[in-house]
């Protein structure tokens, strides 16, 4: 039991803080802070800068660019990044396909993909969900049929976030239609420029186009782009989804928005009800951050701690609650979401409702909060 960071960890924190606030261009960080949409180029630039300094994929094996950090340091890295409004490394690369290839892929696949994945030379998309396989992911129907040295892929994926930028896509495909649900699924890497791949953007309720549908029509995929063993894809997906939840509670980012909201609030902060709302959210965020630290402390074996579901569940709830608070601070101005720069209404008020609406997704994507409750009830409480 020790409140303080060790001198080494404190120095590490200062180092991270300095790096993120001086090495990542202000323009990129402002875009994040103002909740505007990042361009592809900004995301790439930011990740490459981090990668140059060995900070893009710290949780990977050291030989592939990772860092031999304690969980606490990973946490500090993650929090300082969010605190500085630096876009995190692309999750599809850094937290999803990268660790899967690093853990289950052949040496050849590792060499071929990991450096490019860490440096965002390849932009990965995720091909898991399908129109009829949401929370019940294992009921997916996209098929891959072996034909000589290739697989022939047919089917449809959906909710492919930022798929419009994707160079490659990692997919769960059904390779044994006879096997039961979870079995018979494989993990395949597909070049999105292959003939037969079509990407169609889906407009979301905030007017943005961050998710897509991806169709596969007789897409031929070299068999050496299979990760791990045939029909073992479900295991890799579970591994990946476990990773996905770690650091999924956007504590630092939410804290930053809440602190910014005090500035937005101005004189409204003198109102006791408003101040109490801030104080209550602030306390819950503190509780969440401390829980993340506790979880970090208790998962030194590298496996996701079951309490990470708590982080996802509460983290997204608070993220949403803070976005709701900002809409309320904007008040009638919050209607002006489509106004241009000549508007008399401050930018944060104009962004408030789209951000609020967009964040409704936070409790749905990446394992809905219902799934998280299920995990808590089952895994932790034994119900």
């Amino acid at each position, binding site marked *: 039991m020790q409140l303080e960071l060790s001198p080494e960890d404190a120095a590490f924190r200062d180092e991270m803080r300095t790096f993120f606030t001086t090495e990542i261009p202000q323009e990129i960080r402002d875009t994040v802070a103002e909740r505007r949409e990042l361009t592809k180029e900004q995301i790439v630039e930011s990740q490459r800068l981090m990668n140059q300094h060995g900070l893009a994929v710290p949780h990977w094996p050291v030989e592939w660019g990772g860092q031999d950090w304690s969980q606490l340091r990973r946490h500090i890295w993650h929090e300082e990044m969010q605190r500085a409004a630096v876009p995190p490394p692309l999750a599809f690369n850094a937290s999803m396909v990268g660790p899967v290839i690093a853990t289950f892929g052949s040496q050849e696949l590792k060499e071929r993909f990991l450096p490019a994945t860490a440096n965002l030379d390849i932009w990965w998309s995720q091909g898991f969900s399908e129109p009829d396989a949401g929370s019940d992911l294992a*009921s997916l129907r996209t098929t891959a049929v072996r034909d000589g040295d290739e697989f022939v892929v047919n089917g449809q994926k959906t909710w492919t976030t930022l798929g419009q930028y994707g160079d490659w896509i990692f997919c769960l495909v059904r390779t044994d239609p006879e096997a039961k649900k979870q079995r018979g699924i494989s993990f395949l890497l597909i070049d999105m420029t292959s003939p037969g791949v079509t990407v169609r953007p889906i407009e979301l309720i905030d007017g943005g186009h961050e998710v897509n549908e991806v169709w596969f029509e007789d897409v031929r995929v070299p068999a050496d782009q299979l990760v791990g063993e045939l029909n073992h894809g479900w295991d890799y997906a579970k591994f990946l989804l476990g990773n996905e939840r770690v650091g999924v509670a956007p504590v630092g980012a939410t804290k930053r928005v809440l602190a910014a909201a005090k500035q937005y609030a101005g004189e409204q902060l003198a109102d006791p*009800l408003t101040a109490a709302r801030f104080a209550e959210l602030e306390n819950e965020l503190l509780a969440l951050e401390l829980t993340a630290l506790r979880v970090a402390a208790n998962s030194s074996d590298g496996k996701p701690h079951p309490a990470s579901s708590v982080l996802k569940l509460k983290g997204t709830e608070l993220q*949403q609650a803070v976005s709701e608070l900002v809409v309320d601070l904007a008040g009638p*101005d919050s209607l002006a979401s489509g*106004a241009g720069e*000549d508007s008399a*209404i401050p930018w944060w008020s104009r962004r408030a409702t789209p951000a609020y609406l967009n964040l409704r997704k936070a409790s749905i994507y990446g394992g809905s909060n219902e799934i998280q409750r299920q995990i808590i009830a089952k895994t932790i409480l034994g119900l």
Partner: protein
Amino acid sequence: MDFTYDEEQQALREAVRGLVGKAYSDFENRRRAVAEDPGFDEQLWGRLAEMGILGLPFREEDGGSGAGPVEVAIVAEELGRVIAPEPYLASVVLAGGMVAAAGTAEQRAEVLGALSAGECVLGWAHAEPGASGAARWSATAAAVTASGSGTEWTLSGVKEPVVAGARADRLVVSAALPDGGTGLFLVDPAGPSVTRAGYPTHDGGRAARVGLDEAPAVPLGEPGADLTATIAVVLDIGRVMACAEALGAMDVALASTTDYLRNRKQFGVPLSTFQALTFRAADMYVSLELARSVTTWATMVVAAGRPEQVADAAARAALQTSRAGRHLGQEAIQLHGGIGMTAEYAVGSYTSRLTALDHLLGDGDHHLRRLASTVGEHGEVDPLP
């Protein structure tokens, strides 16, 4: 005390439901309508006029059909059911309501006649950008000032967001008077001293920044008279009608959710098999019904013509409906899952519209503050007068 609608009221509901349902029950039609300016269906606006809906709240001598608040609330609820993008609340209830309450007989006949006939879309230019604290959602104006005397007046300043402000044929503008207080003015937005920058709002509607640079303006009613109290009453009526519109939207958002739970299968069974989900739908129903009760009651308070009780009733309806709208809007998307996030599917647009209605004339906490400040002045709240 009687909560039942009479036959005429039910017929009105069915007629409006038929008309707007024909236009928008296919959600693709609404998407098309909001995709391009003016953001609504001008033909439907014309048909609403023909049916007498646009003139519903106005006296017959002013060109209206002299119906009451219960009828207007029925229309608002039906528009809410299809989240019709027509600016009924802003143009008829608020801008029209201001003219009806403050205008001279001549002004009323001219402006409301044209409004009722569908010949003139009115804009209600009242909200001021960046207003904070007590200035938000108030009945007074500060950022736009009026100068002049008699019938010669000009206005200067900025109003934003003005719903349907770019499309409006005429604007009703609130402005700070030289000697204090707030007046109401008719402004021709086509004039050279008026600038308008229109844009879409998140709920598919349209709003605008309206800049006034010594823009000629005609005072409503007696020139120079402080109309703060009048504005306050019409705003309160508008709040109740916004609640009615929200009721319609919540009703359909819930129905859409229960349909989805019945039909969508996951893990080989319909979602309605999952008790954690159906119980949440039940809680949504509870919120909706409680909001319906207070809003219907508040409509009756307006109809009973007790202006001293309208402010209280409006605040109560708005508080309850704000809470319910958030609850239903958020849960409707959550229970739909990913599909609820897409613009192609209707339910997210209902949430968006509920969010807009919630913030248009005062959100729940705003009204709670008002109610809390007088909570010590009475014992029990008695809904029976």
